[in-house]
Every structure is written in structure tokens, then in C-alpha cells.
């Protein structure tokens, strides 16, 4: 039996409200808040990046399980904003957590699903008996181009999961991956901001892949949507996950605990993993949890977890996602935000 033995998330302290961004570009904040269902988003501090967010999330995951980091045999970091183009984030994170040197690490990239890719690989290595524990992290400090719709959503944060075979908090029952070549969203090497195919990002990309993965794992497992206590779908905005969930037969009640996008934004590789983390924060023993990620390009990873009797013992051992979202954020105006995100050209 393989499952999550520790989990944790980190969301930076800074936020910007949708009104600030709308005001800057002469857009209608009310329409955006209603259409995208986004109120505010997290913004990384000047000294934060995918590496520091990964370390912060991983430390919380370690707090929720009593293991020696030296026994972690594999570490995968999924992000579309690794600080270096060449040089792994995983080495810095492994060093900071005390996992070095006897471990395998790799940086993964698959738009918004790089974090769940890491989870997919980490659990498989544990299941195969290759390593005792494996850690997967999804973290990002994503950038939307100024005035682009993505600017309302692209945010910063991450979540970490440690997989093992003993003291499991949530057993991993089934996985399924669904992938095709779909150019809905991309960023070429060296380009600062991503490009997206406008309307093309919805139906043939997000909905097709999320539904494809969800239907396949439901068929594989024999479960029906009503068997689940909770469901998490990748959150590029507030509307897409609720819409796709409804299409598949899930209810708002099942999705609500993991639907953190209205206050956090889209943390890309950290999006559905943080939804899972927020759900584990409130899960009870025996609860079935359904999760589907989505990464442009495009693909979805689906997971079915079952919370064990140990889940309630660890929920309070580290700060919960909803606590971080509510914990006295520091609000930025657009000027401060532009400085924080290095959108202002400085004199060298």
C-alpha cells in the first residue's frame, strides 16, 4: 500500500486584488470577478522563487511525518518558473532540506501539471520498491503578461507531498494520465511571458483533458462521482474547475474545500496540489478524494486517494492552507506589484 505520509503548502504573504489590476488597465473589475471568479491572488516577495517556496512547503510536509530526510530517496520539483534555465531547483531544495547526497532528483516542466507529474513518478518509485520515501513538489511564481487576462490569475505558491508505505495519511488507490499534443499555451525559451490560444484554451484543452482523465480513472476504479467526499480540479480561474466538475457529476459541496483559486489565484504547478492539500486539511478517515490536474500542451493526471485513520493526527502539525490564506496578508497596489514582479525596467 502506497500513499501520502506527509503534505504541506506555502502561499506567500503578499496579495493583489482584482480591482487593482482592473483599474490599471481600464477593465471592469465587477465583470472579471464574476466571469473568472477571482477576488485576489498571491504575489511572491522579492526574495521568493520556486526554490524558496518548495523548501517552505516541504518543511511543512516534513513536520507532518516523523521521518529522517536522509531516507528520502527521490525528489521531484514541478514548475514552469524554475529560477535557472540550466541548473536544477532540486539540488538546492535537497541541500536545504538535508536530503543530500544519496537521492535522485529532477526538475519537471509541463505547464500547470508539473507538480502532479512529480507525484505520479514519486508514488511509482515507492510502489516499485526503488526508494523508501519520495517527495514531489509543485511550485510556481507564474507571470501573466501585463493587461492579459492571465494577469488576474497567475500567482505564487506550492505544495509538497511525501509518499511512503508506512504511516499513510491518504492511500493512493488509482492513477491515470491523459495526454495529447495540444498547443493551447506556451512560452518559448527566453521569452518572459507566455502566450495562449485565447478561446482554444477552454474546450479542446482544459475540458477535453480533465474530462478524459476523470472519465478514465472513474472507469478504471469503478467509483461514481457520488462515492467521493471531495474533488479537486486544476484551477486556472474560478469558473473552469466548477464547470468541469459539474459536467462530470460532482457537486459544489465536494469541490468547495479544495477550491482555493478565488483567494490564491492560479499557482500553476502548485494549483491542484494545493487544492488537495487544503482538502487533506479537513478530510476525515475513510473519505475518498478525487483529483485531476491539467497542464497545457496538454495533459491531465488523475488520482484517487482514501484518507486513513492517521489523517486527523497530523492536520494541526503545520499551518493549513485556509489559515495561510486568511493570515493577515499584505496587500500591494499595482505599482508595488509591478516592482515585486520585476515588470519595471531599471537602469543597470
Amino acid at each position, binding site marked *: 500500500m502506497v500513499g501520502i505520509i506527509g503534505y504541506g503548502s506555502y502561499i*506567500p*504573504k*503578499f496579495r493583489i486584488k482584482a480591482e487593482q489590476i482592473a483599474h490599471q488597465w481600464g477593465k471592469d473589475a465587477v465583470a472579471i470577478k464574476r466571469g473568472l471568479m477571482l477576488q485576489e491572488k498571491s504575489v511572491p*516577495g*522579492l*526574495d*521568493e*522563487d520556486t*526554490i*524558496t517556496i518548495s*523548501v*517552505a512547503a516541504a*518543511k511543512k510536509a516534513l513536520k507532518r511525518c516523523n521521518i529522517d530526510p536522509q531516507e528520502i530517496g527521490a525528489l521531484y520539483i514541478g514548475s514552469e518558473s524554475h*529560477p*535557472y534555465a540550466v*541548473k536544477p531547483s532540486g539540488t*538546492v531544495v535537497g*541541500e*536545504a532540506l*538535508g536530503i543530500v547526497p544519496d537521492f535522485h532528483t529532477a526538475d519537471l516542466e509541463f505547464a500547470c501539471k508539473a507538480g502532479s507529474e512529480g507525484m505520479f513518478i514519486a508514488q511509482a518509485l515507492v510502489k516499485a520498491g526503488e526508494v523508501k520515501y519520495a517527495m514531489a513538489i509543485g511550485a510556481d511564481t507564474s507571470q501573466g503578461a501585463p493587461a492579459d487576462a492571465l494577469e488576474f490569475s497567475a500567482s505564487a505558491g506550492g505544495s509538497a507531498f511525501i509518499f511512503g508505505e508506512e504511516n499513510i495519511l491518504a492511500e493512493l488507490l488509482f492513477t491515470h494520465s491523459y495526454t495529447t499534443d495540444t498547443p493551447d499555451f506556451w512560452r518559448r525559451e527566453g521569452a518572459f511571458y507566455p502566450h495562449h490560444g485565447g478561446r482554444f484554451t477552454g474546450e479542446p484543452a482544459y475540458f477535453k483533458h480533465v474530462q478524459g482523465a476523470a472519465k478514465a480513472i472513474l472507469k478504471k476504479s469503478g467509483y461514481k462521482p457520488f462515492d467521493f467526499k471531495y474533488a479537486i480540479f486544476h484551477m486556472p480561474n474560478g469558473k473552469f474547475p466548477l464547470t468541469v466538475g459539474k459536467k462530470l457529476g460532482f457537486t459544489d459541496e465536494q469541490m468547495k474545500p479544495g477550491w482555493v483559486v478565488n483567494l490564491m489565484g492560479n499557482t500553476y504547478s502548485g494549483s491542484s496540489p494545493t487544492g488537495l492539500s487544503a482538502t487533506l486539511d479537513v478530510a476525515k478517515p475513510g473519505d475518498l478524494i478525487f483529483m485531476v490536474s491539467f497542464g497545457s500542451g496538454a495533459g491531465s493526471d488523475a488520482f484517487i486517494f482514501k484518507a486513513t485513520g492517521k489523517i486527523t493526527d497530523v492536520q494541526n502539525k503545520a499551518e493549513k492552507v485556509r489559515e495561510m490564506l486568511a493570515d493577515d496578508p*499584505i496587500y500591494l497596489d499595482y505599482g508595488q506589484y509591478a*516592482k515585486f514582479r520585476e515588470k519595471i525596467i*531599471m537602469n543597470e
Partner: protein
Amino acid sequence: MPSPRYRREMPQRYRLEAGKCKGCGKIFFPPRLICNKCGSEDFEQVVLPENGKIVTFTIIRVAPAQFEAEVPYAIAIVELENGVRITTQVVDCDTEKLEIGNEVKLVFRKVQEEGKTGIILYGYKAVLA
């Protein structure tokens, strides 16, 4: 900061590893080779606690070029739970509201960049607990 020194100091900068004198128990951060209290050269490695209190602090308003974007920022002496004192930046806070005695915890952050194309240096900073 030269890169070889950064590599050598990773255990203390990344993981708060300190040296505890086996002769008298004094903890040194950064670690030393000879105890200045009892003269012992025998140390064991300990990890510092992440939580502490601000003993005193100053606000930097005119910073070196590399840190200009961060002003005003706070540099504090923090006393950790085991009594060890360290000097560190305090971030993610309104510097106007900072007070002596504030409880803080150490976090892993980007400290410096060797220019736009050089390596990124990481280390500890404090945030309000």
C-alpha cells in the same frame, strides 16, 4: 561573495547547522574550530531552532545598489530559543510596525544574486511568527 565560500557555508546558511562545544556546551554559529570559552577543539553538530525573538533592529533606508528595491528593510539581532543570537534580515512585514520582542521564525529565502546572469545565493531570513 565568492562562490567557493558560498558552497562551504551551505550547511549553516541552508540548514542552520551550528557547532556545540563538547567541553563546555557553548554553541557557535557559524561553527568554529576552537572554543573561545574553554579552548576545546571537540565539537558536535547541532541544528539551531527556527524560532526566536527580536533583540534589537535597525531599518535600512539607503541600501547597497543590489538591495535598493528592498528598502526600507529591517536588519535584526534575533535570539533563538536556545539563546544563540544571529543577525538577519526581517522580511514580509511593515517595518514601521516592527518592535523589539517580536516573535520571529527563520525561513529559507533568496539572499543575493551574482548579477542577472550569475548564481543565486540562498540563506535564512526572519519573518514574524
